[in-house]
């Protein structure tokens, strides 16, 4: 299975790229800038997944399991994908809303999440590596992760400028089938990219720790 991960990731990424630019129809009102949707939404999905992994790994660390490298790797990757969410959102917003940024609940909550995890990584950088750092960072990882449900429900709590969820709408997906198919393939591709990066990065962190301790 492990040997298939990299080829599967490459294949899914190529398929997603081709579908985004050749298969998905051009949105009637927004034009080609709408194709950012197929990067923006999967990046947001990965950002949330990454922080969930941080939370789970952090709980594992507090239960004396060797999951600190997984937590750190996931936070680093999560920050990268949250940055992609914010940048693609700003580019998309510039075209669609006429402004790159508005202080609505969803955008603001994503920015908060980004700041929480930058703070998490800053805290790790300021403490000496070891078990104490791992446990203290785990505490921050857990309390940071409580922000995840608030982000998801922010659109429901505050009626605001950000579009209502298109896919996770209680009345069902509102996308045409070609767009939905492209989105699903993008989600699969991004998920595989996340798993690949997570595996490689956590292994690298483990190896570095082993070298430092020897």
């Amino acid at each position: 299975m492990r040997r298939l991960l990299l080829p599967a990731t490459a294949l899914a990424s190529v398929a997603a790229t081709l579908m985004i630019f050749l298969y998905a129809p051009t949105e009637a009102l927004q034009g080609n800038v709408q194709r950012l949707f197929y990067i923006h939404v999967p990046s947001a999905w990965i950002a949330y997944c990454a922080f969930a992994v941080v939370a789970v790994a952090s709980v594992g660390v507090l239960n004396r399991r060797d999951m600190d490298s997984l937590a750190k790797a996931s936070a680093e990757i999560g920050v990268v994908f949250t940055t992609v969410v914010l940048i693609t959102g700003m580019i998309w917003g510039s075209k669609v809303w006429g402004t790159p940024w508005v202080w609505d609940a969803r955008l603001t909550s994503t920015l908060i999440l980004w700041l929480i995890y930058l703070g998490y990584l800053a805290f790790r950088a300021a403490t000496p590596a070891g078990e104490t750092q791992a446990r203290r960072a785990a505490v921050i990882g857990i309390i940071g992760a409580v922000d995840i449900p608030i982000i998801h429900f922010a659109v429901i709590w505050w009626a605001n400028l950000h579009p209502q969820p298109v896919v996770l709408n209680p009345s069902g997906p509102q996308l045409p089938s070609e767009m939905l198919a492209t989105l699903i393939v993008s989600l699969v591709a991004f998920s595989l990219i996340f798993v690949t990066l997570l595996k490689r990065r956590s292994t690298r962190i483990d190896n570095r720790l082993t070298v430092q301790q020897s």
Partner: protein
Amino acid sequence: MSRVTAIIAKDLRTEVRGGGRFLTIVLFAVTVLVTLGFALPSDSPARSTVAAGFIWTSIFLSAVLDLRTSWDAEHRDGMLDALRISRTTPAEIFLAKFATSFLSLALLAAVTVVAAAFGFGGESGKLLHAWLSITAGTVSVVAWGTLISALCIRVRSGDVLLPILLFPLIIPATIASVSLTSSFLNGTEVATGAWIVLASVGLIAFGTSLALFEYALDE
């Protein structure tokens, strides 16, 4: 509970005998409020609208100072080590520290609300409601602030890390509190859902901090 009240009593005695750290924090909060007042023209109609935000900025900056100086003193005087080796549990230490800091911030909020209403205008009949909305929001400030302060005691750049870690966490509660406070001060419609947000976030903050506090004291 007797150990909790003993720690609270110790902290209050230290405060009374210690030369007025609380009064210094109050002075800081008022200074911040005055400084923020210069961010707007003297005749700006926005003064009353932004007063709630100014109050919060003042409270948060003061809370960070208060938490940091409180924990620094405990660490420097060896009180934290003494508590750790005594039979006091981490949960008891957290409850005592939370109570002391919450009381301090509640008093600070009262002073700041009155000062802001005086300086920026506001409905005097609703000052109590405004104070309640701010005090409800400070539950999450104090809960998470107490936890993160303990985590940052022996950390390089802990002074800077405390606000970096704390401010993003408390923003959802801040939004709700500022909305309520602004409504009370300006006599506009109150979003009752904001009380639910405050209660929820406050409970989450208190519960998670209480559960995780023992790891903050780990060496």
